[in-house]
């Protein structure tokens, strides 16, 4: 009890307006001797903490033929260790008033709990335990395999838009594993077994392949002490392979796909271009592409919606999207959802025409000023949500970036010139690197 009361005292003091004004002041980082990275983000407004462990391993690190195993293993990490019975991890979090979950992406797998700040040690004790000690029954885990197949049914099979996305990604990447869905191809998921899951676990789950992120009402030295106590004793995996995936060859042929499904209510055309991602120490091109997506389609005053939705009324929705947070080459996308009476072929031509005009005219400077001011303001707004801050650092550090890169990013965005945006556009809009996809309503055939 003593420790709890002392902490509560600290909370009360910290409620006064001493909050740091920039994120840099709130972030501290360490590395444990076994190679585990630790990031602490202080936010003393609520006596709560989010505790996350991120592994530098996602679906794109899987072996060929066992797609979905990274995500399957994520589910299995809740199925017990030598010390914890199946389900007991989450029960314990819950019994302490917390919530927990996990998620898998191409480049990372992450586990998190949100609890009262004084439970941090318990969370670390359990999370450190399952980093090395899961204990699984060969037969029992088949039930969980059924669960991930139902998850695929729910997220993908029941939704033509998701099926379309899978087909586009598969066409986009000729060699890189981003062409394989995170949740896995169904025909491979149904054969996943204990050996597949354990092979992935033993290869990738170790402190020198992990990032600990703690955000909330904590002191950095206290987090470090707890991390050393719980994660420190876990030996590093000396056999951890260097993280190199099969890379893309030169893409030399435009790809065009049409996905038809009777459940499509609103056809659209979407094109994605292979695009560079944020690289450590080299983020300018990604910053220019980020601003390009904003200028072209980030809000209703952007170029594509203004022209196609508002002036010409030939689109229900038009936009552009890009996220530079990725370990390997990512994509820049444009989409046009045509208005009634406009065909997909016309919608594609409309999209291309507006982009060509934009490249001629250049960037509207007042629009760019608005976007940059909004980006500055987002640095204020984001301080209100320590969960999303924690996710940002975890995702960056598992996607090849450093904390310095994260902190430089807003400054780089502010420094990007209109010329750099146009140059980035001219480079990225190369049809040989692109997949153009039509999502159509399939005509129902009576037999």
């Amino acid at each position, binding site marked *: 009890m003593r420790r709890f009361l002392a902490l509560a005292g600290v909370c009360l003091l910290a409620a006064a307006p001493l909050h740091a004004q920039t994120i840099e002041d709130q972030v501290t980082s360490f590395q444990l001797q076994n190679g585990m990275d630790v990031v602490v983000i202080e936010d003393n407004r609520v006596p709560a903490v989010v505790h996350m462990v991120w592994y530098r391993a996602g679906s794109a690190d899987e072996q060929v033929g066992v797609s979905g195993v990274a995500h399957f293993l994520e589910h299995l990490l809740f199925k017990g260790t030598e010390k914890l019975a199946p389900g007991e991890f989450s029960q314990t979090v819950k019994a*302490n008033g917390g919530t927990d979950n996990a998620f898998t992406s191409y480049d990372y797998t992450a586990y998190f709990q949100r609890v009262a700040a*004084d439970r941090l040690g318990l969370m670390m*004790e359990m999370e450190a335990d399952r980093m090395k000690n899961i204990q699984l029954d060969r037969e029992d885990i088949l039930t969980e395999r*059924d669960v991930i197949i*139902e998850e695929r049914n729910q997220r993908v099979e*029941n939704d033509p838009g998701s099926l379309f996305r899978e087909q586009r990604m598969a066409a986009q990447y000729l060699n890189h594993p981003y062409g394989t869905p995170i949740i896995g191809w169904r025909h491979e998921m149904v054969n996943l077994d204990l050996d597949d899951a354990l092979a992935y676990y033993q290869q990738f789950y170790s402190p020198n392949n992990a990032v600990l992120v703690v955000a909330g009402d904590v002191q950095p030295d206290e987090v470090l002490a707890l991390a050393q106590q719980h994660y420190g004793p876990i030996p590093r995996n000396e056999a951890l392979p260097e993280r190199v995936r099969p890379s893309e060859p030169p893409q030399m042929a435009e790809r065009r796909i049409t996905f038809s499904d009777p459940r499509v*209510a609103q056809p659209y055309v979407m094109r994605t271009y292979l695009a560079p991602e944020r690289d450590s120490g080299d983020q300018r091109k990604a910053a220019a592409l980020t601003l390009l997506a904003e200028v072209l389609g980030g809000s209703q005053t952007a170029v594509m919606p203004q022209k196609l939705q508002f002036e010409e009324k030939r689109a229900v929705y038009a936009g552009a999207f890009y996220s530079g947070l990725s370990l390997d080459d990512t994509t820049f996308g444009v989409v046009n959802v045509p208005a009634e009476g406009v065909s997909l072929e016309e919608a594609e031509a409309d999209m291309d025409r507006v982009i060509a005009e934009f490249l001629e005219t250049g960037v509207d400077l007042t629009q760019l000023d608005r976007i940059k001011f909004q980006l500055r303001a987002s640095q204020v707004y984001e301080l209100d*949500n320590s969960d999303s801050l924690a996710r940002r650092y975890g995702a960056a550090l598992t996607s090849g970036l450093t904390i310095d890169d994260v902190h430089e990013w807003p400054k780089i965005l502010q420094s990007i010139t209109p010329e750099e945006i146009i140059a980035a556009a001219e480079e990225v809009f190369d049809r040989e690197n692109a997949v153009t996809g039509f999502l159509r309503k399939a005509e129902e055939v009576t037999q």
Partner: protein
Amino acid sequence: MKVFGSLIAFMLLAAAPLRAEIDITEVTSPGGINAWLVQEESIPFVALELRFKGGASLDLPGKRGATNLMTGLLEEGAGDLDSRVFAERVESLAASFDFDIGDDAVSVSARFLTENQDEALALLRDALIQPRFDQEAIDRVKAQVVSVVRRDAQDPDNIVGVAFDKMLFGDHPYGSSIEGTEESIAALTRDDLIAAHKGALARDRVYVGAAGDISPEELEGLLDTLLGELPATGTPQAADVEVSTEAGVTVVPFDVPQSVALFGHEGISRDDPDFFSAYVLNEILGGGGFEARLMEEVREKRGLTYGVYSYLVPKDNAALYLGRVSSANDRIAEAIQVIRDEWTKMAENGVTEEELATAKTYLTGAYPLRFDGNGPIANILVGMQMDDLPAEYVNTRNAQIEAITLEDIKRVAARILKPEALHFVVVGQPEGLDS
């Protein structure tokens, strides 16, 4: 097991006293508008949440979709500013205004920087008080809403909700989609939107919550400017409606590999003295997390689904107890049987001492964690006012949970769980189920 055992016991002891430091100030403007505030100066912005009770249920006969369309047009130009200039002004202040609508309320979630607060509020005021409803914007937003209606008609998650609502509520506004139909949307005129605006956004039904870098005096001073020119009264609220169902299954055929089921029956209203007991009971039966009985039986033990949940839905004019599950077409029948069995079991036997203790620890421990940011706090403040709760509720709520006994749960389980009324609507190609 032993190692953790001792630690967990220690933590449980410490669980009770944790409390978020939430200090609510109630203010009333000279014009008589009330608002609740949590002042939090550490980050220089404000989250402001406005909610107008009534929402889409205020649609007049034959005008289904009017309130929804009106809400979608609030950001499409106001006063002297057309939609484009209005949007540019909002962006240049880095403010954001989200207008949303449900069965029972129109909600406005605003976020703005302290440094340009006055300009941001002037824009928000114009959007609320003098939206333009330009014909150009009406036509454009209508096309967007129709696009949503068509997409929803092909989405099993949505189809199941529509079918269930239709079955329960028939001609009451709850019985149809808030967007309306393609036909009803096409027929809406500018005058209909003006009428919907007058009817839905009135001072007699507005609730205000704010959190962030603003003082009670500032908030008090801006309320009349922001809302004072709205009409004093609006359209009368919709009538209450009885919910009655019978045990059974209704199948809506749709070609998808996984069936989606929505199930439920009558629920319990928010102001019922048994509401808290019902809330705790539902936490154990089908609330969030993997430990609930439905999740344990349907997912963990049998792998029949990715997720199964149940939830109380105390709407303004009806109270429901609902749940949701999705399973492959050849497995949904088994999932439904398991859910029925659990429903009956809990109705007859209630819960165990241990389940009740765990649920209490979770619910009381998790409560302070909800207050984690200005936006969520502003939301909670409005919700409390709409539920007619006093400000001190934030400090008494956990004690109310703690006071619930095993006997309370047993009595309330027998009262609110009605296996004989538990109806399932299933969208898909389910095997082994007959309507």
